[in-house]
């Protein structure tokens, strides 16, 4: 059965600053969408809003998943309904092992909990597929992981949680060529194995899109989708950058800002006096 993630006329602000200004986007399972655009124009904001990060305030518009109102759901409900965000900066959680975390996450969406044997089998399998450290299950969640390991761990979680829609935010940053191939192979395997799986990817690089070919490409500038098309758009951006957008569409590019915005949350502060 096909699922639909539908975003209509979405306006989102961080504090007083309006970031998204009327986004319309429909994603069906079976499709792969690429979101492109200069830094600071709202790509991560869009993905974070779909997942429900508390710093994003939706001021107007709707997001629905198969007709259900996503915006009224808590973050964990969204996940259990089939949304997954592969994060640009996955959190390091001290003291929580990958296996404790993943088992809880997998069981959260099942009526009958997995047996320990089933879990270990699934975890071992995924660890092998992503060519990760065999000791991963016993390591603390992302703690001391290299950038590439963190990204692979996001894909490992995606595989085990089997979402309907995966949103991958710069999943290719921090990956070397080999790791990128492994990640791409695993994403493709999910696409092939499951027709009821949709994908939205944010990346600046053609390389990822060559390995995981999008069916739809959108360019986001100043909180709006200004151009849409197919793979040819990626090639054009790769060759010419975003300057042509400005010229052809008469849009002023607003650069910087968002990706380095400091997040209004309380950091884990431990003062140390020796």
């Amino acid at each position, binding site marked *: 059965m096909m699922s639909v993630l539908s975003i209509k006329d979405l306006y989102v602000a961080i504090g007083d600053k309006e970031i998204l200004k009327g986004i319309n986007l429909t994603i069906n399972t079976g499709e792969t969408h690429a979101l492109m655009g200069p830094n600071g124009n709202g790509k991560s904001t869009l993905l974070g809003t779909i997942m429900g990060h508390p710093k994003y305030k939706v001021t107007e518009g709707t997001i629905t998943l198969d007709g259900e109102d996503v915006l009224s759901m808590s973050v964990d409900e969204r996940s259990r309904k089939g949304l997954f965000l592969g994060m640009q900066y996955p959190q390091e959680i001290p003291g929580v092992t990958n296996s404790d975390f993943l088992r809880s996450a997998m069981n959260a969406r099942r009526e009958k909990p997995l047996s320990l044997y089933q879990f270990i089998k699934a975890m071992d399998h995924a660890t092998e597929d992503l060519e990760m450290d065999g000791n991963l299950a016993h390591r603390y969640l992302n703690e001391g992981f290299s950038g590439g390991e963190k990204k692979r761990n996001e894909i490992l979680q995606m595989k085990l949680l089997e979402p309907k829609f995966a949103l991958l935010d710069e999943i290719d940053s921090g990956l070397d060529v080999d790791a990128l191939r492994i990640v791409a192979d695993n994403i493709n395997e999910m696409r092939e194995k499951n027709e009821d799986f949709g994908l939205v990817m944010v990346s600046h690089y053609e390389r990822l899109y060559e390995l995981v070919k999008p069916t739809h490409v959108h360019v986001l500038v100043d909180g709006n989708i200004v151009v849409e098309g197919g793979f040819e758009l990626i090639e054009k951006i790769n060759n010419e950058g975003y300057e042509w957008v400005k010229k052809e569409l008469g849009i002023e590019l607003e650069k910087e800002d968002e990706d380095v915005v400091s997040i209004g949350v*309380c950091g884990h502060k431990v003062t140390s*006096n020796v």
Partner: protein
Amino acid sequence: MYSFEHYIHFIDGKMTENNLPKEVVVNDTTITFKYGEPIQLHVVADVKNEMSLHYVFEDNVHAEVIETRHVEDNGVLNRTFITGAYAHVNFFNENEGTGKNTYLDVGHSSHNSMLQLGYSELSDASIEASYTFELDGEGADVRLRMAALSKNKEKKHYKVHIKHNAPHTTGIMDNYGVAKDEAHLVIDGIGTITNGQNGSASHQTNKIIVFDPKCYASANPFLYIDEYDVQASHAAGVGKMDEEHLYYLQSRGLTKRQAMQLITYGYLMPVVEVVDNQMIKERFELALSKVGA
């Protein structure tokens, strides 16, 4: 009910049942461990009003002890520890009290003895506790590890003091705490090295994580050192729970309650890592895995 083959049960200072090895002798509320085979003993203490317990580990004794105490409202448990020369003792304390409890521990360690204590302070009680260990003999070593959770309207206050009265002594404490809801949690860590106790080491870590704005938490390190040739350090701090951690776990489908439970477990977990005794490690892990959100 008992975790070891050998056990002893007290109710308000009266022994009610026991199965003791030949190396353990009980006289009133004094439990004496004699040299022989390594000893494992589970002590259960039910305290309605006030009770005292005296542990005497004679020279060269090797022992592992678990003490489970059920202390009722306004109950007081006083304990003393004598650790003999070259004795090697691992001691785990688990509180299962309710209401308001008072705990007073005083220990004296002889030369070249080693006493490692684990305190699982996860009970539903408000607690006023003072744990003082004196290193009286050269080369004595005391290591104290604590995991404390204060929740709802509980008030927990711990004063942990390790006093170096002899040269070449080692005192280490690692206190980890979590405060949530409207609870209070205060940990005072005190290390005292008097003049002439050269070559001694006093180290302490006191860390508390606060979950909610109505909590009160304070981690206070004190080092009183009157000798030059020593090693001393303290790391203390109170931090806030990282909201991004909560978001990350919830974005994988864990409810807020489940996520907070994992985070609590995670914050208290480092205590397990510093323990170098399997029994204490396992007891801590078991106690922490039961921590609710």
